[in-house]
């Protein structure tokens, strides 16, 4: 089994705070982290490797500092990592991102055929969830989004069973390998990495590729040039008017709320 996990570097939105008064972003302490969903994706690969054997590669497109998230992936249990980094990739929307990643996956699969690709459900910054399915289409392999469990992998028939989250429930589906999964956080808990992984990661140097290292690349499909969407404008939504303020002391205010509640006869019946 050769599993490739796509991992993205994102700013830590847990730490980013928004000042509700000024509506500005408090960027002071927003370090770059491994997209949390992608950590679960790597962990999924680790569990599959533990059960079925194989190797785990991770792939990221991003700035040179993204080597850190590749090392983080090695801590979780990846065997190696590739970073594609080049000015030509900058400004990519999801279409251009999936194009670039698919070209890198082509090269990786030449070195060692890929059986499974795993992505996060979405990245917490761009937050579109479109890159995974996009890659699957470009490679013409089945995508399975919103995965909450990899139930069975049959190496001989090359078929996998997967639970996929849907509105109000889940579905169990079966598909063939290679395929692409995007995983929800609930698929697993990230294990506390063993010390040898930590040491390995601290020593690890990711493989770095530029556009020129990839084959058959149509440069017009990369980065800003290859992106059909653009950010037209940014604006602060018009401030809504607001409603009626309830006056008086706390007793009066509570009373007014109760009147409002009990007016809703379909919710409460009082005699």
């Amino acid at each position, binding site marked *: 089994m050769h599993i490739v996990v796509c991992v993205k570097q994102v700013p830590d*939105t*847990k730490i980013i705070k*928004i000042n*509700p008064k000024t509506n500005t972003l408090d960027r002071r302490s927003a370090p770059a982290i491994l997209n949390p969903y992608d950590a679960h994706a790597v962990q999924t690969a680790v569990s599959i490797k533990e059960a079925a054997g194989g190797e785990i590669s991770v792939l990221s497109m991003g700035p040179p500092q993204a080597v850190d998230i590749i090392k983080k992936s090695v801590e979780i249990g990846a065997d190696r990592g590739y970073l594609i980094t080049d000015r030509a990739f900058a400004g990519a929307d*999801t*279409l251009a991102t999936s194009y670039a990643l*698919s070209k890198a*996956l*082509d090269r990786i699969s030449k070195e060692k*055929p890929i059986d499974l690709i795993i992505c996060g459900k979405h990245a*917490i910054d761009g*937050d*579109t*969830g*479109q890159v995974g*399915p*996009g890659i*699957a*289409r470009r490679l*013409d392999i*089945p*995508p399975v989004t*919103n995965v909450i469990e990899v139930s069975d992998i049959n190496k001989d028939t090359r078929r996998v069973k997967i639970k*996929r989250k*849907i*509105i*109000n429930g*889940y*579905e*169990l*589906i*079966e*598909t063939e390998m290679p395929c692409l999964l995007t995983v929800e956080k609930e698929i697993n808990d990230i294990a506390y990495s063993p010390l040898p992984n930590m040491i390995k990661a601290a020593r690890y140097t990711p493989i770095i590729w530029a556009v020129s290292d990839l084959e058959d690349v149509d440069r017009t*499909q990369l980065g800003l040039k290859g992106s*059909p*969407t*653009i*950010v*037209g404008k*940014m*604006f602060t*939504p018009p*401030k*809504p008017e*607001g*409603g009626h*303020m*309830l006056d008086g002391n*706390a*007793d009066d*205010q509570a009373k*007014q709320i109760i009147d*409002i*509640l*009990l007016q*809703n006869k*379909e*919710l409460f019946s*009082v*005699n």
Partner: protein
Amino acid sequence: MSNGKSQEGRGPLMLDNRGVWVYVEQNEGVIEGVSLELLGAGRKLADKLEVPLAGILLGDNVRELAEEIIFYGADEVYVVESPVLKQYRTESYMKGVILLAEKYKPEIFLYGATPNGKDVASAVATDLSTGLTADTTMLDVEVEKRLLEASRPAFGGNIMATILCKKHRPQMATVRPKVMKALERDTARTGRVIEESLEIREEDMRTKVLEIVKDVTKKSLADAHIIVCGGKGMGDERNFGLIHELAGLLGAGVGGTRDVVEAGWLSHDHQIGQTGETVTPKIYFAIGISGAIQHLVGMKNSEIIIAINKDPNAPIFGVSTYGIVGDALEVLPILIKQFKEAFHEKGGEVTHA
């Protein structure tokens, strides 16, 4: 590993495309609410552009739903029926949608941002080599250039980003459930139904759906008629108990902001907002919540919003129907006490829960 199929020349520069389309998601013959909402939103866009509004319906034995789609605003319904479309699968649904889009060439194409809606839209956008704006909460159109202006909360800050797709058609967007308004169902409306067939055999399908399990026990917050949502302003987990207490009395669901979930006072499935649930209950209490945009997008379409915050300038008051400037820790116990009295004395009954 590439399929060798070139994507070039497939989508770009089809600027003479016309028509506004809505992907109508049905599950087991029932149309998802978001699809009806999108017909409402799409209607406005189509009227501005003076083009027909079409609903796109795929499935097995679903033709009868076409009428409903027209009642909710469509002028045309494109229907693709096939046994391979019995359950949703990216592979077959995507092919059906692409078939229609390539043949009839719409200029705008909207999808509900549900798991399946996002899934099919992402695949279709890749094959058509066009832009797809994710999780939009505002839609408009610039008539002269026939440009869809799809806006979504931008990462961080109380800022919306309008995403444009200038040179590629169709212009596609997924739209969050419960932010657009469906039209009143109008059985007098009429429209045209166009049927197409899909040539895929089950044997050629790589993916099979083995089982669908609906979780009926878990009552979703999205279904609650009343939600009591607390924020970081409750101070600590113990005080947050007041939120549970009030909710219990009212038969309401309990919600929280992201900060509350991160503090561990509630589990993630109670989070309301951009990265949590979107809800539109009849009554929404926002208590000790500042009202950051990421929270507002998840609740601002509730019918009645009652906000309690000690800061008179808190943005939450901007969206509230009724506001109380005060200390929640003082107001809530009084409210709870008074409600018990007023309600039980009168032999009241919570009839909605």
